[in-house]
């Protein structure tokens, strides 16, 4: 029996011969027989499974890619041993083959050229030429300005290898939009409270919780795979779900309590809950006594945050606030106030996350069953390479000293700030490498991003699809999809430490190459070969695996390997042992000494946020379960499920505007920015009358995306006003308001 590695080699030769044979015979019948393999249901054909883990979103569920005898990938099914997926992939994972078969994929390296009339165009180039050019530009940059003037935006597994290159090159400016644009506030808040952050995947024990509280989190529309599975188990177990959301999300529809809160008032509700739980003595006295610091200060702080006070702000009735608080307390410690994931809403998000952390603390849920578990990951040794050079400057130098002291990751918006030339700065970033993230959709304030790009010496984009950012690149390097490459092993933390292998199920299509090859080739050209002392990444993987008692061959067979926990317990505080937290006081800080020291409020306060004026509606955005980011809008399988987004409008509002269900309208925001394309109106009772809702990731402007171009409206386009979180630089994006235009605004201009 042939092993999987041999299979790949044989198939390329084999299909070549078969193709030759077919053309010689040119028989309709033979051709039909060949095609019919594809018409037979997948489970009825002979399939070979290849282990992989999904890269469509960031959950990285492990699975098997099944390939038939013609070398075609037929389906992707979850790996049953994987704690992320438990054998069931979400629709994006199942539809991952659409990413592989997408004819609009980037196929060859592209280099920007200028025509005689001044217009730019992309010309196809060879890898040699493209890599040489990138290396040349990077070399020039470090010679003239220093390697610290390069920045890398990366998202996804492959970013690790590119980061390795950039660190070897000497730049510390490596960022992912997922901090300042997404989960940054809660990481800082939880670290300030518990000394550890929430991690990704979140360490939430939804499976065993008796009361799940969701503050705006829309599990079920976001497909955090095992969280949805666990929420389903919680529903089976009769657990109470309380959802706080101005919109009836899917999670809200499955909840026992839906609190249709007025947008931007969540802190008031959280403070009121803390008030009820403290003053009605429903908190976990032993836990609070043993593990927390600052309880008396907290009690004094929430003295006036009564449900009646909160009612006036949030429109949630006092008896509901009390009843839900009682439910939470009754179920404690198996209660979980979910920290959410994308929490950059209004600029005070760190404080809101602090309120969530505090509420969890007084109910005694941290590090206990039904609340937050203690995750563990496999620690793989790094392949030995020379130490990285120490950079002399970093992006933080673009800001006044002492700002963002609490920030432990690089701010993507900080990179933009550091790129735009500023008389106060002695230098600015001059080169960007963008890996696997469509900046036009992931960063707010598009005009700032464009301004930054205009000031760059060069922009290199590495991606699989011609996303909108690709249009601005100087050099485009096409990467192959996750189904066509090896990558670093997945070592995400979970209840049990687990490793997952990604192995190619097919040779890279077209002229695409994997990230490790691109990094190594660039390394060679930049004199950094020492940092890539291996032939290919399989060498690295095998070396790493052998160090922990496994091997590449074993991982190829099983896909996922689980290990025994080495440290602590899954729920270390269940029985209230002695424990020290990694905070200044060694305890859970209800009163944050860290924040206090930096001059921020040590306990969250409610502040009022701007509301839309008449005729404008707050732009809320989120996910749909069949798509993720802006990267799946062109995927044919997922496009079949949803090919455009729609703007949700309350029926009363629609009646005022005389907008009918299904009508296409344009959106204009408070800064006068108009959506590039029209968007379908969905008139629905699920949305509040003061807001509208858009699913993120549509409204693509790159024509090369034949299915996604021009469909729907881009919410990122309309997020032009951000409120900076002073604590960690997060960009609060939900303070944008839109109005409706029923006629094509660009037609008028033409006339």
């Amino acid at each position: 029996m042939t092993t999987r590695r041999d299979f790949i080699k044989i198939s390329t030769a084999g299909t070549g011969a078969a193709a030759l044979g077919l053309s010689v015979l040119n028989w309709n019948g033979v051709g039909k027989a060949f095609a019919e393999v594809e018409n037979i249901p997948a489970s009825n054909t002979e399939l070979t499974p290849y282990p992989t883990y999904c890269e469509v979103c960031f959950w990285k569920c492990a699975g098997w890619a099944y390939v038939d005898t013609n070398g075609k990938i037929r389906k992707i099914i979850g790996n049953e041993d994987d704690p992320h997926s438990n054998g069931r992939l979400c629709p994006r994972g199942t539809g991952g083959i659409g990413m592989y078969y997408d004819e609009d994929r980037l196929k060859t390296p592209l280099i920007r050229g200028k025509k005689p009339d001044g217009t730019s165009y992309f010309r196809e180039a060879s890898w040699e030429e493209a890599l040489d050019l990138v290396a040349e530009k990077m070399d020039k940059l470090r010679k003239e300005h220093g390697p610290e003037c390069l920045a890398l935006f990366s998202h996804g597994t492959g970013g690790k290898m590119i980061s390795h290159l950039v660190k070897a090159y000497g730049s510390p400016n490596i960022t992912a939009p997922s901090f300042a644009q997404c989960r940054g506030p809660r990481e800082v808040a939880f670290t300030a409270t518990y000394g550890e952050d929430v991690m990704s995947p979140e360490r939430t024990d939804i499976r065993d919780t008796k009361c799940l509280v969701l503050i705006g989190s829309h599990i079920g529309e976001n497909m955090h795979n095992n969280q949805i599975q666990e929420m389903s188990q919680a529903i089976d177990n009769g657990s109470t779900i309380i959802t706080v959301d101005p919109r009836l999300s899917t999670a809200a529809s499955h909840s026992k309590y839906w609190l249709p809160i007025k947008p931007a008032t969540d802190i008031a509700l959280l403070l009121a809950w803390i008030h009820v739980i403290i003053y009605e003595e429903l908190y976990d006295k032993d836990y609070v006594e043993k593990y927390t610091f600052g309880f008396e200060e907290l009690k004094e702080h929430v003295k006036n945050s009564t449900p009646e006070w909160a009612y006036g702000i949030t429109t949630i009735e006092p008896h509901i606030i009390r009843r839900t608080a009682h439910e939470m307390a009754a179920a404690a410690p198996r209660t979980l106030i979910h920290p959410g994931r994308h929490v950059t809403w209004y600029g005070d998000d760190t404080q809101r996350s602090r309120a969530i952390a505090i509420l969890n603390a007084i109910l005694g849920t941290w590090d206990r069953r039904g609340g937050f578990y203690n995750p563990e990951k496999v620690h793989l040794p790094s392949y030995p390479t020379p130490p990285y050079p120490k950079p002399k400057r970093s992006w933080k130098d673009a800001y006044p000293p002492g700002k963002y002291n609490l920030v432990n990751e690089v701010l993507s918006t900080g990179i933009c700030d550091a790129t735009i030339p500023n008389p106060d700065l002695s230098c600015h970033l001059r080169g960007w490498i963008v890996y696997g993230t469509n900046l036009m959709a992931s960063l707010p304030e598009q005009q700032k991003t464009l301004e930054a790009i205009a000031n760059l010496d060069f922009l290199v984009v590495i991606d699989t699809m011609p996303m909108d950012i690709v249009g601005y690149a100087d050099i485009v390097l096409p990467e192959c999809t996750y189904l066509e490459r090896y990558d670093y092993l997945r070592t995400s933390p979970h209840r049990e430490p687990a490793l997952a292998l990604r192995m190619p199920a097919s040779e890279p299509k077209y002229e695409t190459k994997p990230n490790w090859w691109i990094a190594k080739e660039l390394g060679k050209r930049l004199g950094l070969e020492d940092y890539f002392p291996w032939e290919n990444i399989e060498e690295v993987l095998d070396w790493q695996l052998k160090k922990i008692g496994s091997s590449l061959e074993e991982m190829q067979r099983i896909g996922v390997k689980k290990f025994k926990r080495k440290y602590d317990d899954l729920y270390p505080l269940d029985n209230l042992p002695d424990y020290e937290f990694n905070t200044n006081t060694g305890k859970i800080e209800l009163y944050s000494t860290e924040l206090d020291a930096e001059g921020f409020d040590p306990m969250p306060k409610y502040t009022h946020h701007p509301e839309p004026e008449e005729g404008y509606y707050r732009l809320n955005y989120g996910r749909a379960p069949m798509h993720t980011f802006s990267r799946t809008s062109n995927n044919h399988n997922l496009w079949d499920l949803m090919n455009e987004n729609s703007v949700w409008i309350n029926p009363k509002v629609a009646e005022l505007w005389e907008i009918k269900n299904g009508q296409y309208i344009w959106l204009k925001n408070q800064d006068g920015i108009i959506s590039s394309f029209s968007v379908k109106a969905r008139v629905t009772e699920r949305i509040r009358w003061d807001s509208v809702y858009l699913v993120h990731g549509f409204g693509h402007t790159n024509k090369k995306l034949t299915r996604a171009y021009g469909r729907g409206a881009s919410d990122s386009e309309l997020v032009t006003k951000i409120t900076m979180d002073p604590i960690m630089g997060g960009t609060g994006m939900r303070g944008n308001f839109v109005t409706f235009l029923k006629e094509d605004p660009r037609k008028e201009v033409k006339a």
Partner: protein
Amino acid sequence: MKEELFVSGRDIPNIDPYLHIWHWQIPLYLYLGGLAAGILFFAAYYVIKGKEKQMQTTVKWAAIIAPIALVLGLGALFWDLKHKLFFWQLYTTIRFTSPMSWGAWTLMLITPMSIVWVASYMKEMIPGWDWKWNILNRFEAWVIKYRVPFAWVMMVLSVILGVYTGILLSAFNARPLWNSSILGPLFLTSGLSTGLATIIWMSKDNHERKVLTRIDLVLIIVELFLIIHLFMGFLAGSAVKTEAASLFLGGEFTVTFWVFVVLLGLLFPIVLEAFELRGYHVPKWLPPFLILFGGLVLRFVMVEAGQITRFLY
């Protein structure tokens, strides 16, 4: 506010947002089938009654239209099939629960019979006509000898053909507009009436025309009665039925149906034919034309509107 939508992007052509899987080929076939059934019925009837001599057009000349209509109808049907190469599967089995199967077999029998019928009159219609082969001459003689039994068989088959065009639709309980037992008799009556209209138009014999016009008048009144009964049934039925009827009572088919089918296709002909029988001068072609037109529109409207109606859940 009640809202129902597909969340998974379903938009199957010809099925969403409402069903439209049968296009013009089906109502055309139903019309031509009914027409042929009507013609053949009366041709057979008058042969059985022995009134061949008085009703020449009915028995001989108009009968030519029947096989032409049937072949055209079958052609339209075949065109509508989406898996054409397998059409012969229809004739490998008889399925008694499927009106389409009855139809397939009935057509299989009645089409050659109608061709034989016309062929057996060729010598009378075209003097000097000669079948070249002896076997054909002998066959012709056999048919002429057994013309009356032949006519009985054809009459029965033509009734089945006429009624089946309606039962075909009424057997679909998923389409509330069609799911009424009145549809069978309605389409039969309409078929007979359109058959008569054709014969009347073609005939030059005043006596023949008078006899047939009287019968036609009765048939149209029956048809009108059946339509009223149909709507009474809808309005007294369940929610899906009243919803279906609303398409014709204020909905998009209101004008088309009540003006073209009822007013022009039924009421006008009643009045015109009544006057004609009273002796007033009425253009000869007008009543038949209106009846034929009304019958065609009836089929088109019923097939199109019926597909829009559905169960509500």
